């Protein structure tokens, strides 16, 4: 709550334009509401999360060409009995205004080698999440857990060329705060084939000092669409504070013909040098989108192999989302 007015000013400044008419030109604006129920059978605890937010996208042009676009997402988020709770909250029943994406992308000339430049709070370019945005969904690719944070404040160079695309970011490592903590930083990059193609693969690298730990990660990811089926893979090798680990995510999903229904199955394997036993889990989920407003999703995470010092995770989640 302390930062609410700061965030509001940031939102207004980011969306500022010479006049009201220009302000509404090329502006997409939506109120995004969702409620999420988490039933943790491991700890026999239920928790709920409530999100009410403003999601905006605006294209800026100079009458001759597009010069950039902004994405601003500001969410009021309330936890109820959430244990453990994310780093930006103070306790298990806390409420906060959270900035998700908040950036401006300066567009360079299309045929030049000069990259576009993104400034602000953005999702780190790495792995499957880079080509498949999971913002506000139950489905995710472990971005926050694997990289230490999903989003960070900084600069990101990006460009789509004829046969490939890339993103390269430098950010402060402050996560939700616009500052560097004890020399923190994150360098993250992904180069890939064109993301709209049926077969897409990418190579990602990551180096950071985050939470006073040195972190490195390299990943190869691929996705392949055939008929209504999609196969995805991410294979990563990491070093966190001199502890080697490797990670493999496999996903198979299917959409129905009008794409209102999606079902997915993920298998996640993680082997850590400092743990005797590797971790393996399955995620089975579904998403129903009857129209542009409503979205209902449900998923079960079931761990079936886990390190000796951890309990077996069994988590059932359901989410109802309404955008207008």
């Amino acid at each position, binding site marked *: 709550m302390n930062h609410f007015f700061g965030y509001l000013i940031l939102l207004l400044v980011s969306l500022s334009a010479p006049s*009201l008419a220009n302000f*509404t*030109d*090329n*502006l*997409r*604006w*939506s*109120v*995004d509401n969702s409620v999420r129920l988490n039933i943790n059978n491991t700890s026999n605890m239920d928790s709920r999360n409530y999100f009410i937010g403003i*999601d*905006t*996208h605006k*294209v800026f*042009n100079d*009458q*001759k*060409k*597009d010069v950039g676009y902004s*994405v601003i*997402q500001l969410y009021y988020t309330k936890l109820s009995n959430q244990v453990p709770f994310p780093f930006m909250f103070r306790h298990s029943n806390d409420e906060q205004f959270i900035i*998700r*994406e908040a950036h401006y992308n300066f567009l360079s*000339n*299309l*045929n030049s080698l000069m990259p576009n430049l993104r400034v602000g709070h953005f*999702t780190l370019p790495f792995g499957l999440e880079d080509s498949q*945005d999971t*913002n*506000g969904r139950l489905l995710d690719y472990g971005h926050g857990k694997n990289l230490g944070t999903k989003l960070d404040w900084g600069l990101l160079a990006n460009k*789509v*060329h*004829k046969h490939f*695309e890339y993103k390269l970011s430098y950010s402060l490592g402050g996560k939700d705060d616009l500052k560097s903590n004890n020399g923190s930083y994150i360098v993250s990059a992904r180069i890939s084939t*064109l*993301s*709209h193609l*049926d077969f897409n693969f990418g190579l990602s690298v990551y180096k950071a000092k985050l939470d006073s730990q040195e972190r490195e990660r390299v990943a190869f990811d691929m996705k392949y*669409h*055939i*008929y*209504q089926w999609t196969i995805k893979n991410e294979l990563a090798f990491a070093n966190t504070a001199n502890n080697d680990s490797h990670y493999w995510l496999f996903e198979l999903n299917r*959409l*129905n*013909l*009008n*794409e209102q229904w999606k079902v997915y199955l993920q298998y996640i394997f993680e082997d850590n040098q400092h743990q005797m036993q590797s971790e393996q889990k399955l995620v089975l989920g579904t998403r129903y*989108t*009857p*129209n*542009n*407003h409503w*979205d209902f999703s449900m998923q079960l995470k079931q761990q079936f192999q886990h390190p000796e010092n951890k309990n077996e995770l069994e988590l059932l989640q359901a989410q109802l989302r309404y*955008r*207008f």
Partner: protein
Amino acid sequence: MKLLLLLLLLVINNCFADAFCSLRDPVSQINTLYPNHESYLSFVKKIDNQTRKIVQENLPNNDLHFGELGQHTLYVVVEKQNTVGYVHVRSEQSDWGLVEIVWAIDVNFNIVDFTFQRCRSPEKAELVKNEFKKVIIGRDFEQLKQYLAKDGISANQTLFSQINTDSKLVSVVLRCALKTLLLTKVVWHDELKELAQQKL
């Protein structure tokens, strides 16, 4: 407060099922369709139930997928300070899920070219060949409408007699072309008229 209410009114029915950060401009496809272009200018407009009725009136037995409602972008392509055409992406339901096609249209609303942004059918290879494209390219809405069968959703024998495939994807591409030309002309009429008067 009035400004806030005005903004709230503006957003009704404007939404998109996914968060806006997932939006991607079809940059590589524009490069493919207009290799000499220097820049593009976006116009974002709302496609709503009223637009849906216009589609149903002009193309009986046709409808828009729910994902086709909401706000969509028309890209005006600029070369040497002149508008050379428009690019618009439309989806059409098929037997293999949604097919997304990127259309290049000239300033007189004729099809210039197209490329698949997303198509899960293996038959798409046949439809990107010149033999099929030459039947579609250079045609306007009324000319392409002549290729529709009586059911209003399939391609007729006149079209199939000119090509060497009987793929169902032919009808999907035809319907998509017709809807794209109709919607571009109707929804972006004012912006394109103003742009023509301004002369970039």
